């Protein structure tokens, strides 16, 4: 599985989404399950999947699928 696939599947798993949903458009508070509880679940799942640790600012800034990719890239995850 590529990092991008792993990244997308983490969103699907945490937010209980099926394949019909385009995960790339997801935003914080944009779907019912990505609320503040869902956010902390997402953070924990991404940290585990990619073996990274977010800074507090990263947790605040991670407001969309795309933004999350940027943050993980900064932490050394290669999406290419």
């Amino acid at each position, binding site marked *: 599985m590529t990092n991008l696939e792993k990244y997308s599947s983490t969103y699907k798993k945490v937010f209980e989404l099926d394949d019909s949903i385009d995960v790339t458009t997801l935003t914080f*508070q944009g779907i019912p399950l990505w*609320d*503040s*509880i*869902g956010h902390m679940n997402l*953070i924990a799942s991404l940290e585990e999947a990619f073996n990274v640790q977010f*800074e*507090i600012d990263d947790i*605040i800034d991670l407001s969309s699928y795309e933004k999350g990719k940027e943050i993980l890239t900064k932490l050394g995850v290669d999406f290419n």
Partner: protein
Amino acid sequence: MISREELFKYKPFQLDKITKEKIFGDIITELSLYHYENCNEYRKICDALNNKKPFIPVRLFKDFELKSVSSENIVKTMTSSGTSGQKVSKIFLDKETAAMQTKVLAAIMSDFTGGKRMPMLIIDTKAVLKDRNMFSARGAGILGFSMFGTDITYALDENMNLDIDTVQKFYEKHKDENIFIFGFTYMIWEFFYKKLLELNITLPKNNGFILHGGGWKKLINQAVSNDEFKQSLAETAGFKRVYNYYGMVEQTGSIFMECEHGRFHTSIYSDINILNYRDFSINSIGEEGYIELMSVIPKSYPGHILLSEDAGILLGEDDCPCGRLGKTFKIIGRIKKAEVRGCSDTFE
């Protein structure tokens, strides 16, 4: 004029009295105008009092659904827990206000903790978060502080029993790190400290800290002082650093942290006045009165200037030995005539 967002370019305890009065005062004035234009009830209050910046007694959030945004923009409703039979306060959040709560809390906390996330032990039960659309003050507190934690672990089961095995394993696993323990004052005392005593267990020393907040009512009934609380936890739970914070669900985020010198501090995001019991004029240093609280956060509801039901005393301004600027104060307790008010220290 400096906007709310631009406040983040300053450190939370950096502004002296004169600078803060200007910047903070402008933001509060603008918020008052915003609520006047967007909340019918608030406008009626202003017009009736002929006052453009009145305080709102916290009780009004129980009797009325006060909001300054349309219902479809509300993403979360927070409630004060309330003891049974009492009405609960309802606080309506839109995306912007919810995000502001998080950013302000992060800024204030980072000043005390250095901004690093730490292994976090929560003295509560996970069950408190079970309804994700309606948060109690307790749930909101736990979730808000969770962003400072890693390996987040709950110490109590659904019946509020201490899972001592989990706690001891957590201390052992993170013995070389600074642990962050969070909980509501009464819960830490009743379900953690007292249980440790009963089990005759002293937990190993750790260089991290305990952060606690929420009402003292129940502890005052048991005659437990803040000093005794600190001392007891230092001996039993292994922590020398014990921080208390004061805040209310109506102004979630802009908490008042107690510093190493035992004083509660306003930050650049908040302010207080101590009001005279008789005529609501502003008291000087050393005079007891009602605590009036201001916060730059509330925009989706008119909670930026509140009259609490707590009594306090102003201790000083810009002169705390800890070096942080802003007002410092202490809390005396609940106003005697106030309705006994459920807070985040209650549990159902």
